[in-house]
């Protein structure tokens, strides 16, 4: 169902990329987007969530997506029937006007990068994991930022940002990050 498709995507990305460097940008972007969607879901498992992060005990784990609707669609596919810490996972697409409420993770797409500082302010250090895909985003309050290295999707982490929001990231996550900012510059 979901896993095989993801696996197939991974394999395609893994094996095909170096052998066929010339690809249509659209296609490459689609693969990159689906990988990011999978990573987003998995990030949820490497964070210690406090009950206070949720509205109620039965509240679902909500991932908010800003400025990247296509990824939101991919993410919906990924999280279907999945749980994070016994909670259902739901995806919500946030418009500009929407208040950032009831989400535990917020993905801010490249197109919404300029609004990052505004969004960070709006969050006001609430325990919401902020994931971006724009270079230098960590300096503006993002906690995890996707980077593309050697055509592979990697990510970097800002521990101080996470700590400010009261989020504890798993060391295993840190281990596989491309880079980790540990102190505020």
């Amino acid at each position: 169902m979901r896993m095989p498709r993801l696996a197939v995507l991974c394999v395609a990305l893994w094996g095909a990329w170096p052998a066929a460097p010339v690809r249509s940008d659209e296609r490459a972007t689609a693969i990159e987007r689906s990988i990011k969607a999978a990573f987003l879901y998995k990030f949820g498992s490497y964070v210690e969530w406090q009950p206070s992060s949720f509205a109620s005990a039965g509240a679902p784990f909500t991932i908010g997506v800003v400025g990247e609707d296509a990824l939101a669609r991919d993410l919906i596919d990924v999280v279907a029937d999945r749980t994070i810490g016994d909670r259902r996972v739901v995806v919500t697409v946030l418009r500009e006007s929407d208040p950032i409420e009831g989400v535990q993770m917020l993905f801010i797409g490249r197109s919404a990068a300029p609004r990052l500082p505004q969004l960070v302010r709006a969050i006001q250090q609430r325990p919401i994991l902020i994931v971006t895909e724009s270079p230098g985003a960590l300096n503006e309050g993002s906690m995890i930022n996707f980077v593309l290295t050697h055509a592979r999707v990697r990510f970097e982490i800002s521990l101080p940002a996470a700590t400010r929001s009261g989020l504890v990231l798993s060391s295993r996550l840190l281990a596989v990050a491309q880079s980790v900012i540990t102190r505020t510059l």
Partner: protein
Amino acid sequence: MLSAVSRSIRGKLMLAVIATTFIALLITAVVLVIYDLRTYQKSWVADLITQAEIIGRASGAALDFNDPEAAEQNLQLLKVRPKITAGALYDADGALFATYTREGVTDVFLPERAGPDGYRIEGNQIVLFHRVSDNGVWLGTVHLRAQYEMLERLRGYLAIVGGILIVSLLVAVLLSYWLQASVTRPILAISDVAHRVKERRDFSLRVAKTTEDELGYLVDSFNDMLTEVGNRAQALETTNRSLEHEMAIRQDAERALLIADQRKDEFLATLAHELRNPLAPLRNALEILRSHGHDTEASSAARDIMDRQLRQLVRLVDDLLDVSRITTGKLTLRPESVALQSVVQSALDAASPFIEARKVELSVSMPAAPVQLFVDATRLAQVFLNLLHNAAKFTEPGGRVGFSAEIRKRTLVVTITDTGIGIPPELLPMIFEMFAQLDRSLERQHAGLGVGLSLARRLIELHGGTLEAFSDGPGRGTRFVISMPSVVESSGAPAPAGDEAAGEPASARRRILLADDNEDFVSSFALILRAMGHEVSVAHDGQEALAAAITFRPEVAFLDIGLPKLNGYDLARRLRALDPARHLVLIAVTGWGQDHDKQQARDAGFDHHMVKPVAPEEITAILTSAH
């Protein structure tokens, strides 16, 4: 080999100890090795699974976020376990994700795809695939390849077990030697003594006791048993010896009995023959008398024949009676004082007809003076007669028979010689045995019952003397020597000239009663008496005899004992009672000649006892003495 070892107790003990040790060690070693190898395998597999789980868990994020470098860094941790030669990580789809190979290891094949969960042994390597999952989500598969040192361990164990076995077997050998010293030495001692006892039959041997355990008890028991067996063997030997002795005696007795029985059988055959022999001449003589009664010469010859044959018969029957007396031990002597000369004379008188008939020359040599003997005259005469008869019988016509009597220091020595056929030296000791006949062939020339010499010697022995025979061999004649200390008086006076027989007085005429139920006997007897000039009355039973005695008034009565109606003894008593004062001579004439018969006759009142057949001389003698 095994049987050679197990033939001795020492070998068996050693075999038992070694085999027990070996089997115990082997079983222990096998069980321990199997257990250890199983434990080794289990723990090694569990260890590897743990390693795989750790690697897998640690690599969960790397797999999640597609980071092979991180995964390989995780795999590099396997360096601390040098026995793990290679490792690999496969993602959830089973594709190779990251690999690790220990330094220095080159020929390692890591499959492109994850294999099924589990482990397998490939020679000296163990290969493991372990799936790692987290919260029910399958993260991937860890593959480990490690050294599997089962064979090395096994080899090590075998070396250890082998070493222990060698040491243990050495100890076992020492132990069995010790056991041999304490167990087999007493047994060997017993075995040795038993062997020697068997060889030498020496029951005095004993086993030295060295221990106080069961073997000591065995030694004691064995020694006791030897004592017991020795005693019994000795007793048995003694018994055997006495039994053998007894057996020999019995066998001798049996042989003697057999010989005696055989002789008796031969004697009976001879007896029948001898009794029959005179019958034919007697019948012939009778025939001559009947047909040629008028021929005086023929009658005379016939009477001579009858006389000779009758004498022969009487002699035979006398001998028989004597044999009976000898065998029943009832032969007794009636010694009296008598002159040697008269005894010799009566013997010569009796023997001369036969000697003359044999045409043998007889020479007699006697002491000049009369010799008084205290002997049973009849018996002594019988001995002389026997020997003379014997000498004449075995001497061919023309030969010589010598009779010489002399006195040597009050001992009478009588020598009877002949020039006859002699006796082989080896047979000399046998001739005096009862029924002995040197010539046993049916065609033998010399008839006889074979009792004469035996009887003669017995009679001489009863007189306290000896009778010996000498011969220089066959054809060289025989010499019989009688030696008896019965001389009472040997006077220097010469013997009275002539003898009583020379002038036989005519018997007085007597009235004689004859009583016998045998018609022939009584009538012939009457004929003889009447011929002598006597008056004779004949009765055929007891009553008739009694009646005749009353009417006839006999002076002499010859009575048969076995008379009908009134037996001889009763008849005698009646006759004595009839007229006690009158002098009546009673003579019993019977076929019973035993001593007790004679005694019974005397008791009944008889004066004389005669055994049938009666010789005319005896009648004459009695009639003469009855005067």
